[in-house]
């Protein structure tokens, strides 16, 4: 398989702290690639660089063979990158449908509409509803996001990423703060997405990672120290020492 997204020698420092230090990664089309690592390993910083929110000091990000290192964040979705956030970034004052409608209008390049009410635009609301169905939020479509539970917000994060119809999904801890039951449901939903997208998954929930991932990369102190299949990572002494020891001892 050819790499759809590749990260080469990425480096980023904040003052004296090296948040990313020689990070390398290959993500093939249709592959679900998990990034694991202890707290503070720089996982979110890495995602932010791929999404374009943070400009790396050094290194390259290639998408479909094209160097996108210098492409601004707001242009990357058009190239096929969509992301979700570790801390939900939603529009709390809007309804779920409206949240998705904004995303769909943006994807279709129709955000500069000044007259037609978004909340009555069937060409946006119908597909919006379909995404909500996909993540099981259809019953709450008309509610305001501020009324949602934490678990429901995580689902909506996923729906927004899906609505961008990107080829690569960057999912930053989709299970953050979820209970066992909610995590299981999210795992199931991600399982259903496997193969249709190239997914880069940052996650702490090891059961989910081992169930979902095709490949796993371990990030420690901003450095990608190891990449391999689930079995290889499970068996690695290095990983046990560096990371799993802490949580799976």
């Amino acid at each position, binding site marked *: 398989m050819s790499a759809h997204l590749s990260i080469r020698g990425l480096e980023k420092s904040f003052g004296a702290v090296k948040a990313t230090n020689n990070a390398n990664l290959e993500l093939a089309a249709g592959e679900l690639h998990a990034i694991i690592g202890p707290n503070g390993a720089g996982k979110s910083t890495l995602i932010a660089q791929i999404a374009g929110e943070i400009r790396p000091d050094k290194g390259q990000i290639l998408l479909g063979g094209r160097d996108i290192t210098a492409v601004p964040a707001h242009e*990357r979705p058009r190239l096929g990158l969509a992301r979700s956030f570790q801390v939900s*970034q*939603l529009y709390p004052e809007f309804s779920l449908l409206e949240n998705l409608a*904004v995303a769909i*209008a943006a994807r279709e390049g*129709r*955000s500069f509409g000044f007259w037609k*009410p978004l909340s009555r635009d069937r060409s946006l609301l119908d597909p919006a509803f379909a995404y909500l169905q996909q993540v099981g939020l259809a019953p709450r479509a008309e509610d305001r996001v501020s009324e949602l539970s934490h678990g429901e917000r995580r689902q909506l994060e996923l729906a927004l990423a899906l609505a961008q119809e990107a080829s690569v999904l960057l999912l930053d801890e989709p299970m953050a703060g979820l209970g066992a039951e909610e995590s299981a449901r999210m795992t199931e939903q991600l399982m259903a997405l496997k193969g249709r997208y190239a997914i880069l998954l940052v996650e702490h929930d090891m059961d989910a990672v081992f169930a979902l991932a095709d490949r796993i990369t371990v990030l420690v102190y901003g450095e990608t120290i190891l990449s391999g299949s689930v079995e290889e990572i499970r068996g690695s002494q290095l990983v046990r020492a560096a990371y799993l020891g802490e949580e799976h001892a």
Partner: protein
Amino acid sequence: MSRRIIIDLACLATFALLPLLAALLDEPFLVSLFTRLAIYGMAAASLDLLIGYGALVSFGHAAFFGLGGYVVGIVAFHTAQLMPLWGWEGSNSALIVWPLALLCCALLGLVMGYLSLRTSGVQFIMITLAFSQMLYFILGSLSFYGGDDGILLNERNSLPGLDLNDANQFYYLCVALLVGWLLFCRRLVGSRFGFVLRGLKQSERRTVSLGLQPVRYRLTAFVIAGLGAGLAGILWANYALFVSPDMAAWQKSGELMAMVILGGVGTLLGPVLGAAAYLGLEQLLSLWTEHWLLAFGPLLLLVVLFGRQGIYGLLMKGADKPRRARARSALPPLAAQEVRP
């Protein structure tokens, strides 16, 4: 009928019937007061577009009010003096002068907005203030056009089919433009563009991650709001037959902000009510004492500190679940800054 529609209709009826009432009471000054109110209401509602929906606290909105007025004033000056302006003999037709003034306001909005939007938070407040002060001083230095004393106009602009020098006709024109502006703004905030603008206020990161560039939307809103205030300035020049740099002074920007907050941030109609309250209080309190600000200051303070939803919020209180966003709470929290000597 929802509470919101009742309020809309009550306001509309008041504006529509006012000249009749003024005639009945034999108080023609009421028409004049309400003309001022409609003009300021339009400027305040346009500022609300920025503050309430875009979380862009502009402290320089009076710049547009002043520029709109000055373009009318300067053209009138040249036309009356039979003194060509760059080869153009001038015109008194509203259909020519007003679009010209709006064009100038749009250009000002583009430049001022583009530069100001490079900053955010307190710096944004200050740089918008700086731009309007710049304009204020530039207008004041135009000694050819009266300097600080401004320009007196001989007559109002002409519109086919209307006699704007007639107080009632001019009043109804102002009201019609106000109503049109409010309807346009309501439509705007509910449109796809409006949702992006309001979305930026709630989560800029999300909006960028959806593939939208914030500045484009904010700048567009800045220009549109500037056009609203510019139109108000145009009307003011015609109403008062006088323009001066004070129209662009920072006190005027402060007044507009006070109107927005008195009426209710993020409600559009609220700021019109806020303008009514402000001008009404000015009228009443100054009958009572020339030191009317002595009473108005504490009153404004009370509203800011305790009446967070403004007049519109008060009227809507208890109405079934307001759909309109409570804009204030979503303004970005203070980022206290580090001190390093």
